[in-house]
């Protein structure tokens, strides 16, 4: 069973969202998503300072098996990307909720935060997809 930390929020496209103290949000892909993908060999992160709409393509995670798009779970401006993934894409497998984070956004529509799933709802979604 994959890990679904209770302090995070989720979307149905298998990204997780953590709200930071400064109001920005950190985004990555879930443990469940990395398990499905298998060994990650490449991560394309968004460019800093770009504006993304909720649901817009933000990057790509490529595993030995397939390429999978990363979608921005919220509208906002990209304030930081995880440059460590360029040389160590396997961090997405090893530590999806920590060192394997993908990008940080400054949300432009805080109301959207209300629409995110909590851990329980996301766990149900994963079970349904099994």
């Amino acid at each position, binding site marked *: 069973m994959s890990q679904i930390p209770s302090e995070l929020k989720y979307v149905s496209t298998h990204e997780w969202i953590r709200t930071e103290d400064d109001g920005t949000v950190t985004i990555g892909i879930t443990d469940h998503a990395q398990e499905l993908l*298998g*060994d990650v060999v*490449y991560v*394309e992160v968004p460019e800093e300072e770009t504006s993304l709409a909720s649901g817009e393509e933000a990057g790509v995670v*490529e595993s*030995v098996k397939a390429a999978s798009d990363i979608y921005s779970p919220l509208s906002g401006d990209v304030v930081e990307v995880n440059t460590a993934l360029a040389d160590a894409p396997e961090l997405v497998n090893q530590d999806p909720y920590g060192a394997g984070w993908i990008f940080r956004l400054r949300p432009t529509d805080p109301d959207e935060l209300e629409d995110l799933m909590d851990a329980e709802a996301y766990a149900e979604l994963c079970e349904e997809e099994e």
Partner: protein
Amino acid sequence: MSEQNLLKTPLFALHVELGAKMVPFAGYEMPVQYPMGVKKEHEHTREAAGLFDVSHMGQLKLHGPQAASLLEQLVPVDIQDLPLGKQRYALFTNDQGGILDDLMVANFGDHLFVVVNAACKDQDIAHLRSHIGEQATIEVLDDRALLAIQGPKAAEVMARINPELARMVFMDAGVYELLGIECMVSRSGYTGEDGYEISVPAADAERFSRELLKHEEVAFIGLGARDSLRLESGLCLYGHDIDTTTSPVEASLLWAISKSRRQDGERAGGFPGAATILEQIRTKEVSRKRVGLKGEGRAPVREGTELVDADGKVIGQVTSGTFGPTAQVPVAMGYVATEYAAVGSEVFAMVRGKPLKMTVAAMPFVPQRYYRG
């Protein structure tokens, strides 16, 4: 094909027991990976010994005094002079000079032992029957499993089981007793590593595999790693890198066409598509060639990706591609317009709308480590 119709190899239950992820492949339910994961399985094979279930492949025996000369009517390869106890790579060609399948042929003395691709085997058997079935006996060995043990520790492991195997060199083939089972063994494989392919009666396959797994160097490896291993080694996958529309010359498989079957050879021509293929060899004029491609960075360039020149003009297409776990760069093969086929040529792969620079590179991408004595 629906899942109910999928065939199972004699090792199906063992794969499931070992936690393999099973997927449909060429009409069979096959292990694509085990809990170790594709990347580690790849590395394990390069460092120790990987065990592969390739029982989905077609195993045939051709009997009859004329078997070799008859098979020669279907392949541009010297079969008549294939020495006893030797194996050779061959291609079934079609009348247009395309490739129907690639195969391995071994001379076992009183018969030829032939291994063909799973996805092509029914068609290959029909092809053999219709062309040479009246003069040669085609025996389909559907009661045998096929295992491959590959990697730098494969020989050491197999020598513990039967020391005679250590005396075989690359592409030797013969019948050996292993763990009390009569096996057809060749020193060959599809990973670029030293190793063996072993044909075992279906009823003994599970016991045989379990015995091999007792050696700490040995682990089962799935189709996922098999694909990245063969690609790094520059070996074609039928249906992807070669097919009915690619001639052996376009596919850069000239080495597989025996001298004796070429123009001015002792038995020149006499195989389907010979006129086209021999003309391509003579004039060296083909419009495209299969090449190896090395990328930069880490983004894999996958099958189907368009290749363009510096001006954005389409000049080819990728037929296989991945990030090479051993090569540590994106590796691919594909077809490019002949003027871009020279090693060192720069081309661009269009990945998600962006041109990624790739360089035409010599294959294999990772040195082959066959044992030649």
